[in-house]
């Protein structure tokens, strides 16, 4: 599985979810494949997609909040897993695209080849799942519709090999279209 397939699979079946995507290739990939106004693309601030997603989830309890995180990103801010597990937002689903590497900076290794993120998820009060194939992901996406969060889904992926284009919106535009789109709902 590669990131693009995973993002397509998740987004096509969850068009109403608010998505906060981590900086680097994850935001670029989401922008290229499935741009919509209530995507909040992170540019910079590595690790903080989960914290921002948590803040949104607590204030918009009727919306589904998806966090698109990477293994490198989540390792930089493990503390927020604790905070999410403590505050327990029911509407938060935290996806981690785990390719054991910092792909955006040239593919350097992360430590998730030996440390299992789903175990960390379990002790921090998430309902935790791990998938390795597209088929497993498809089944899980149906299953979690009836489960309340916080949910952590570790998705083992391969490195892409391709680079998506940069998010074309300026940071302030990302903010404005996000704010305007959630106001309408």
């Amino acid at each position, binding site marked *: 599985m590669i990131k693009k397939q995973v993002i397509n699979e998740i987004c096509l079946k969850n068009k109403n979810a608010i998505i906060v995507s981590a900086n680097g290739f994850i935001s670029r990939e989401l922008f290229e494949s499935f741009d919509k106004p209530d995507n909040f693309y992170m540019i*910079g601030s590595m690790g903080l997609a*989960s914290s921002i997603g948590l803040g949104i989830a607590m204030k918009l309890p009727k919306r589904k909040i998806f966090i698109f995180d990477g293994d490198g990103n989540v390792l930089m801010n493990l503390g927020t897993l604790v905070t999410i597990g403590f505050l327990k937002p029911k509407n938060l689903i935290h996806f981690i695209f785990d390719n054991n590497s910092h792909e955006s900076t040239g593919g350097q290794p992360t430590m998730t080849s030996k440390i299992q993120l789903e175990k960390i998820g379990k002790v921090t009060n998430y309902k935790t799942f791990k998938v390795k194939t597209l088929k497993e992901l498809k089944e899980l996406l149906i299953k979690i519709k009836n489960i309340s969060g916080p949910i952590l889904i570790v998705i083992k992926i391969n490195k892409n090999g391709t680079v998506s284009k940069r998010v074309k919106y300026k940071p302030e535009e990302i903010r404005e279209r996000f704010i305007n789109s959630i106001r309408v709902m």
Partner: protein
Amino acid sequence: MKEIDQIKLFDFLLKHKVENFIGVPDSTMKHFINKGLKLKKIIISTREEEAIGIATGMTLSGSKSLVFMQNAGFGNSISTITSLVQMYKIPLIFLIGWRGYLSSDAPEHLLLGKIQPDILKLLGIKTKILNSKNWKKSAQWALKHTDNGNMCALIIRREFHD
């Protein structure tokens, strides 16, 4: 800043629609934080950058937020301030405890305490230093600043030893 003024500051901000107070504790502002804890309005985060992230999410969702931290944590947060708060223009109020204000403070606070005003200036962060006389005016200034879409910082000096 005296206990009573810290409590009044909290009440004033809450009354003026600041709905979320997120941060890492600092003894310099413990009365402010304790008041918020009593009212169940405080979220204690694991690190300051995280607090800024959560507050950003809440602010994007239309809920006014303040982040609090010691200046040691402000040091941690500089990249998050420049590449999140300032870059996306997120109107947050920062409340920062100023350790090292007294040159006789604990050694770990001395260097950062000394250069703190310069760092704030370099970052272009609009700042007011709070005292018992100006706290209300300064809080009003901060609220106006955020209403206009800008971040700003209120500073509480550490004027005692323990």
